């Protein structure tokens, strides 16, 4: 029996939701506000919320000093490339694990997830040496490969969860109608799992966009994405908060906008199968 929602309860829940939302959004809001301050205002104590002299000088300086669009394009290529490559590997893998499970499928899944527990710096030197010998240092190809490998466990796990929700009988029916394995995956399974695939895709793009260990350590000048662009504005000696905030705002703006427009799809995918 459904519980009745009183107006009072609705109001409390709404206020609470707004409060949590604002709390989560506050660091981003503060970064955006700081980007419009002078360096002196950025460190003012007590902090200035809105009553400061708004300026665009930080954006002008960042634009003058750095090639934003080169970093932006590298971020796009690396995140989209690693996501598409990851999906290409993960869809058949998740299909196999969801519909043709073996005795050790669960162990394999757990093992894949356990690789995420390894601190990345532990494998930095071996990966660096492999990349050096393969000529992959400071290349977008190298980063696409490494980010695909890093995010693959998450993609497979997410897709596995979605695929498990799809009744196996539908695939069986397709098989009885003479569908080949690829036709079954491409024309029957994939269209049914679109919300799940879309949210996996979006989440993986966000994870790759924000990845800041490998993208900083395996690049120099050519393949450096927006994470390196941000890192170049932090300084050990001298005030930098306002310029760093401007660089950060420019770096997060594209992914923030993408997240905003795709939030329906993202939420739908992430809650897929959660409520029966």
């Amino acid at each position, binding site marked *: 029996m459904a519980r009745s929602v009183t107006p009072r309860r609705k109001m409390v829940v709404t206020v609470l939701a707004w409060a949590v939302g604002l709390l989560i959004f506050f660091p981003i809001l503060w970064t955006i506000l700081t980007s419009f301050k002078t360096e002196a205002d950025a460190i003012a104590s007590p902090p200035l919320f809105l009553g400061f002299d708004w300026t665009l000088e930080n954006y002008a300086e960042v634009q003058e*000093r750095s090639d934003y669009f080169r970093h932006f394009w590298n971020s796009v290529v690396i995140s989209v490339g690693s996501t598409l490559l990851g999906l290409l590997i993960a869809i058949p893998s998740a299909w196999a694990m969801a519909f043709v499970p073996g005795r050790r499928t669960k162990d394999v899944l757990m093992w894949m997830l356990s690789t995420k527990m390894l601190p990345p710096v532990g494998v930095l030197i071996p990966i660096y040496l492999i990349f050096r010998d393969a000529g992959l240092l400071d290349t977008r190809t190298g980063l696409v490969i490494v980010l695909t490998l890093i995010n693959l466990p998450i993609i497979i796990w997410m897709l596995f969860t979605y695929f498990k929700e799809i009744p196996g009988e539908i695939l069986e029916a397709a098989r009885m109608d003479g569908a080949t394995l690829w036709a079954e995956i491409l024309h029957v399974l994939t269209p049914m799992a679109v919300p799940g695939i879309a949210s996996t895709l979006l989440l993986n793009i966000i994870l790759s966009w924000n990845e800041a260990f490998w993208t900083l350590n395996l690049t120099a000048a050519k393949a*450096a994405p927006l994470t390196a662009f941000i890192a170049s504005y932090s300084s050990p000696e001298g005030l930098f908060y306002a310029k760093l905030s401007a660089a950060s705002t420019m770096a997060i703006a594209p992914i923030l906008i993408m997240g905003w427009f795709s939030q329906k799809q993202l939420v739908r995918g992430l809650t897929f199968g959660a409520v029966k």
Partner: protein
Amino acid sequence: MTLSRILVGATAATLMAFAAHAEKEKLTIATVNNGDMIRMQKLSGEFTAKHPDIELEWVTLEENVLRQRVTTDIATKGGQYDVMTIGTYEVPIWGKKGWLVSLNDLPASYDADDILPAIRGGLTVDGNLYAAPFYGESSMVMYRTDLMEKAGLSMPKAPTWDFIAKAAQAMTDKKNEVYGICLRGKAGWGENMAFLTATANSFGAKWFDMDWKPQFDTAPWKKALTFYLDMMGQSGPPGASSNGFNENLALFQSGKCGMWIDATVAASFVTNPKDSAVADKVGFALAPDTGLGKRGNWLWAWSLGIPAGSKKVDAAKSFVAWATSKEYLALVASKEGWANVPPGTRQSLYDNPEYAKVPFAQMTLDSINSADPNSPTVDKVPYVGVQFVAIPEFQGIATAVGQQFAAALAGTITADQALKNAQALTQRAMRKAGYPK
């Protein structure tokens, strides 16, 4: 003219253009984000105009990221960079390992003898200059002249620690959020440990004896740490265990510190009226001492080195020579004024009467000259480095020791506990590393 001739001509022109482009040597330069380096980046057009065959590509990173990045690259011979910005900590270690190209053969016009002896000494290993200094720094006392006067005191040119403690107490006005002394408290080998190691030197303390045995259980360390904690407790700002260079800079510039002992390079920030509310009320003095013959100041130089694996050594040397030359200093002076010239590297700069007018010039020189990386402590020690020990293990050990000292400053452990823990963890790390070697 026939079509074939046109085609031949066009092909030849394309090939020539391609050849001209292909001939250009591209230098990848890894550098740190600070004002002087960014200025060099902006002025580098002057270099490429004189060397049209060389193209420059910049990788600017935050100091810790840069250090991790270039160390990985040079240790694995990755070959990603042709010129690296490194400090006086890396040069002795990397030079000894043969990871850097010797710069002894720079042309006579470069005038390497003009480099300040203390800085040159810190960048030389077995007679080889392994990096050219871009700017040098020491540490000194920066103080508020108005608050000092109000306290009825007068800052000597070379104060003692006792005077600093007395002045700090007299200048403190906690009701109005004015604190007599601001010092580094944030844990890190380049943060609180840079300050505390240099301070400990002036109290007669040292990291290791001649047998590489840690010395945190000795009386001079206890005296130095207790003095620092007491003074900060009485006259320091709240939450000082989170304060590094930038936090203290912000406090000083907003008028909340009576004195600040930190890098000489800060002088140009605190006297810049654009950012500092106290720009016209700042005086300078040498770092304090206790009369034992060593002052509590450090020595650092951001320098340009060439990794031994670089395939473009000649072009890299041309760039390094240009960026650290007398001509470059003159170029900055002509474009941005004398106060913005990278300080602390060449004697000729300090002999220049124009530069002598800069308020902090002489104090910076005196501070640098009073630090000796080859003899940093009162007693003899087996290591090089004033505010660090030039061994690869130092970064990890000193950061862990720094956490103990920051905890003592925050009041979660006592000075005795911090020193005991520091002694134990240093002993363990040194034993693991196989010292004495």
